[in-house]
């Protein structure tokens, strides 16, 4: 195990070493300035120590030049830090479009995860080495936060909306997974592991099928992928009655809708993402696409988080294969 006395913890994702380099830069700046300040304070305190009770030093002649010069120098240095940090942050914020998507649900006090083929697990996340993975996360109760120190990634997991984290593992192994937003009594037990496996091992692991315990706890049919489950729900709940490709359909055709900009009845423009779909299903009257009547029923309380995630996964899948909506 990597010792806590090493400067850096394990570097297991594609951005780990980049974050560490920035950390090292700020660390060097900090150490240099702290030592400089400490040296000057001690040096002046010794050199100008009071030699007699009658010492009456001249008042300082400050003409602001030193302050302005120091301020300007610091500002340049700090702006450099700001831009470096912001650039890296945006990189860490934008998942590649081909990232594999895993659904994550946090609840007091466990992590429930579901892979693209429908396989579920609890508190352990298996991912293939070298493949970008995007986690779409939500919470069933309070705010949690999903943190993998070895990957240098973290994001809060909120009730009532989706947030995401993405990473590309670069080193096989087993890494800590922590909840980092205080969530009640057993907050410190809301922990788990991330297992980074060789892609072939991951495929083998995926095909073994779900463990009985995980699928029972998480609900939903074992082995059914989120997209398939979503398609089933889309038919069962009658969504397809209005959302189809027929001209004159009562609802918008959902094929290719994900990621598109749509104009609403009030003239505002909204990008269709997970959070917009979520709101439009649960609270359908909130933002309606221009040209359609507010006739869709409200599904809040009729479907659970898992089913909602499955329907959204299905709608997103319509972008890839262009099948009927």
């Amino acid at each position, binding site marked *: 195990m990597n010792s806590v006395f090493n400067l850096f913890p394990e570097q297991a994702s594609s951005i780990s070493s980049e974050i560490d380099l920035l950390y090292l830069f700020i660390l060097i700046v900090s150490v240099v300035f702290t030592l400089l300040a400490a040296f000057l304070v001690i040096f002046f305190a010794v050199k*100008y120590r009071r030699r007699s009770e009658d010492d009456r030093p001249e008042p300082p002649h400050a003409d602001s030049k030193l302050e302005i010069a120091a301020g300007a120098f610091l*500002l340049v240095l700090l702006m450099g830090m700001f831009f470096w940090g912001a650039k890296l942050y945006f990189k860490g914020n934008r998942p590649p479009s081909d990232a594999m998507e895993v659904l994550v649900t946090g609840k007091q006090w466990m992590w429930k995860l579901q892979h693209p083929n429908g396989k579920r697990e609890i508190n352990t996340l298996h991912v293939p080495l070298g493949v970008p993975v995007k986690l779409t996360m939500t919470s069933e109760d309070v705010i949690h936060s999903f943190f993998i120190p070895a990957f240098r990634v973290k994001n809060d997991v909120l009730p*009532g909306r989706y947030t995401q984290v993405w990473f590309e593992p670069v080193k096989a192994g087993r890494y800590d997974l922590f909840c980092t937003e205080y969530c009640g009594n057993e907050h410190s*037990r809301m922990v788990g592991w991330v297992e980074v496996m060789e892609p072939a091992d991951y495929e083998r692991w995926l095909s073994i099928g779900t463990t009985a315990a995980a699928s029972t706890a998480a609900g939903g049919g074992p082995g059914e992928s989120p997209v398939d489950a979503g398609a089933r729900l889309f038919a069962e709940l009658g969504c397809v009655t209005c959302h189809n490709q027929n001209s004159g359909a009562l609802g918008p055709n959902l094929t290719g809708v994900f990621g598109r900009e749509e104009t609403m009845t009030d003239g505002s423009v909204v990008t269709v993402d997970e959070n917009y779909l979520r709101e439009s299903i649960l609270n359908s009257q909130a933002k309606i696409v221009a040209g359609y009547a507010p006739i869709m029923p409200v599904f809040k309380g009729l479907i659970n988080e898992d089913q909602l995630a499955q329907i959204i996964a299905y709608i997103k899948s319509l972008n890839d294969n262009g099948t009927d909506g």
Partner: protein
Amino acid sequence: MTMNTVATDNPVPAGSEKHYLTNGHTLSSWLFTVDHKRIGILYLISLVVFFLLGGAAAVLFRLDLMTPAGDLLRSETYNKLFTMHGIVMIFFFLIPSIPAVLGNFLLPIMLGTRDVAFPKLNLLSWYVFMAGGLLALFAIVFGGVDSGWTFYTPYSTMYANSNVILAVCGAFIAGFSSIMTALNFVVTIHKMRAPGLTWFRLPLFVWAMYATSLVVLLGTPVVAITLVMIFVERLLHFGIFDPALGGDPVLFQHLFWFYSHPAVYIMILPSMGVVSELISAFSRRRIYGYKFVAYSSLAIAVIGFFVWGHHMFVSSQSVYAGLIFSFLTFFVAVPTAIKILNWTMTLYKGSVSLQAPMLYAFGFLGLFTIGGMTGLFLSTMATDIHLHDTYFVVAHFHYVMVGGGVMGFLGGLHFWWPKMTGRMYPEGWAIFAAIVIFVGFNLTFFPQFQLGYHGMPRRYHEYASQFQILHVMSTAGASILGFGYLIMTGYLIWSLKFGKVAGSNPWGARGLEWETTSPPPTENFLVTPVVKHEAYAYDVPSETSDVQEPRPEQHNV
């Protein structure tokens, strides 16, 4: 600062009958006093009690953290203890500490006036503070609170099974006490300065009190209304923050940090003011760049209101909002860093005397510099993602708020102790305690930076075993730190009876407060002083030309 008072012409020996401490010996003479000095002492005693309670909670959970499994406490107890530590230390110690104790005691004396503008309001503020504090303590003793001092929703409103409502009410009520004190200070500084005491002759401590009071007046109402919203959602189930009721959980964080980030400046600006006084007095010269230091307090107070979102880089706030908050945060760093330069340059060619208050000022410089520098890791977005809510943050804000805030408070307490009590503290013990506290503090909190970068989350009762060695170091440091505080409490109490009698001006300092007797008379000055110099006129010998005839009339009484 040179002026003429009856006090300097006819010095009253300390310990004699006539000063504020001897003006009534009954309990009611204290409980119904409107003397700002006695109110300062009431606050001092109350705050010491709160500090010891908050510290005791920290001792318990630090002992528990010696083992990864947390063998000493149950999770529930652990969570209640860290919540108690945060609520007590922040709302009932750090926020009031310097303004309510040193500010109350010194501000009118530094301004050469008899009292604050509204003495009865000042007394009321203490009662309101105690009501809030006792309510919070009641909540903690009878069942406890486990929401963390940050009260994040929807946990605090819909899920916590503890006395959240009572604790929220305690913090809400205590807020009014802050507002009353701040209002009093602003009016007093504007309207009651002695003749000749212009704004740029004011001590930097007064400037710091002024900037702090503005932050309190603008920020506290926002947190008050936020706490009311918690109350309304928790009791009446109005959906404000919980999405299950149609609310927005992130809204709470915006409202909370809109106050609670400026609150960091409420804790640190007064300490900067104290340190300016200490460094000036123990170098015998004006602070290098007086105007810059005075204005930068105001600048920090203003910019401090626009950076709250840097607490929320991983909260799902817009990435562009995060970008702006990160950018503005770096702007606060500049005036803060230049202040450290000003203090350092004051020593250059000064006449430096390393007595205990100066050691605390040096402690402040060292610890606050580390606190400020580690803030850069957290204002940089990419590194904050990794560090957010880990022990790195815990270490950072302890370096700022304890290393900065408490070191300033203790330095000021030692510096003005002879003025407040008429007795000197024992210098040898004080230097020993200052060193023990400095070493203990660093051993407690420095390992926590490393814990944080290696991924140890905060508020964890149990933790992964690789972190144990650093936790053991931290607990060892906390024991040393606690020992240092106890030594200090011991010798300060001892000095009340056995300390050497202090003269009016044991440090040879030039502030107005040193021109009156120690302890001061109830009226502070028997004749209103006329100020002819700034508070740092060390180059003008006090015995010379400035002395003029006492003015017979009294102002501002």
